[in-house]
């Protein structure tokens, strides 16, 4: 196993950076966390190692740079010893990958639009994200985590809906997920955020709330340029 230094470039409010960090912690990999101070003014280090997307997180393993949060999770799973993050069975792996893609491809945009739009449009997006989350919730099938008894790839991928969801709902003044309508998803969210390793790298809720509240006008402005397909 490699003894080479591991650095993670992240930003405190990012669920994507959290995905990478939790993967490292679950595998027991020591790392240095380098936090971007202002994503409006990105560091040389970030731009050098992620010139194409210019986004966090970026994992630096020696002189190797790995970008894209879920790719980092897979890399960490393959490059380091420790408990597996992806299931061993090919069909279960495909299932985890399918639902992770579903989250990123089908859920993130309607979720964002359901927060910051208004009127009939907002109702439409809310319905869409709720239907999608129902499909995701069904994948829990009575298990403690999507990965079974312990966390796996899909739990990590879905972290945004465990910790960030309620913060965004509060800032936007919108309710999308209730324990009555989503009992399993809410139970899972609590299991996820109280997991002994996860909670070591979750941003403080109050800090997130203050930070996102200050950016509300900016968030509302972002939806104007988003054309849902």
């Amino acid at each position, binding site marked *: 196993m490699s003894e080479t230094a591991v650095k993670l470039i992240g930003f405190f409010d990012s669920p994507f950076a959290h995905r990478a960090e939790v993967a490292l912690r679950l595998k027991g990999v020591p790392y240095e966390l380098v936090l971007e101070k202002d994503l409006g003014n990105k560091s040389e280090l970030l731009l050098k190692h992620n010139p*194409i997307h210019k986004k966090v997180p970026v994992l630096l*393993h020696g002189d*190797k740079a*790995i*970008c*894209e949060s879920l*790719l*980092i999770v*897979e*890399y960490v799973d*393959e*490059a380091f010893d420790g408990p597996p993050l992806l299931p061993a069975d*090919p*069909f279960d*792996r*495909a299932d985890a*990958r*399918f639902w992770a*893609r*579903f989250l990123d491809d089908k859920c993130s945009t309607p979720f964002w639009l359901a927060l910051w739009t208004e009127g009939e449009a907002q109702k439409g997006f809310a319905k869409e994200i709720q239907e999608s989350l129902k*499909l995701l919730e069904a994948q829990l099938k009575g298990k403690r985590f999507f990965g079974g008894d312990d966390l796996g790839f899909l739990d990590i991928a879905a972290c945004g809906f465990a910790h960030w969801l309620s913060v965004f709902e509060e800032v936007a003044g919108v309710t999308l997920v209730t324990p009555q309508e989503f009992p399993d998803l809410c139970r899972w969210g609590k299991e996820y955020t109280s997991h002994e390793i996860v909670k070591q790298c979750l941003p403080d809720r109050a800090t997130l709330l203050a930070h996102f509240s200050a950016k509300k006008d900016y968030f509302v402005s972002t939806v104007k340029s988003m*054309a849902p*397909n």
Partner: protein
Amino acid sequence: MAGGEGALKLLGMWASPYVTRAKLALHIKGLRYENVEEDLGNKSELFLISNPVHKTVPVLIHNGKPICESSVIVQYIEDAFADVGPSLLPTDPYERAIARFWAAYVEDKLANQWVRVLRDKTDEERAEAMRQTLAAVEVLEVGLKECSGGKGAFFGGDRVGYIDVLLGGMVSWVKANEPLFGIKLIDAAKTPLLAAWMESFCELDVAKAVLQDVNEVVEYAKAVQARMAAAAANN
């Protein structure tokens, strides 16, 4: 081996580049499968049960279990048939991460934009999608250089790999772009490595066996455009 080859069924539609990806992967691995052509205007029971979430092709059914989403299917074929035929991904974790990075780029920045050239409603939106697609092709040229490492024409070096399969599935549509929209998507003057890639790819037996006839794809696309225009006119 994970299961008998006789247990593989691919639900698809001949024109779909996503289905073509799955076919390429199966052929490269030397796997036999039953090809089922779906009528997407009248979806079969098996299809709806197998992909209730997206209701899209392709769906690979292996030993009765469905796998959906072309990139997930290709990775599944690689995982489930690791001991069969050539590998589509390198063994080194970092090289795998690079391959997945560029595969994600093909999907998110190229394919997803390009679909909008056909599907978006206004001329302005379609023109913007074309600009984004062409910009992505230029970046992909850099990716090809990085991935091939000078060892060959393919992203996989001297033989095809994961990215080649994902992009390769789109080749007939890439070639259809000029007859349809008057623009070369892969232009040797702008992206010489990708142009050479396309030529080398099309020379492969697997490509000859699997890729759709470009003229048929052009006619298909025109029919889709006509249907969409008619639907828009009726709104």
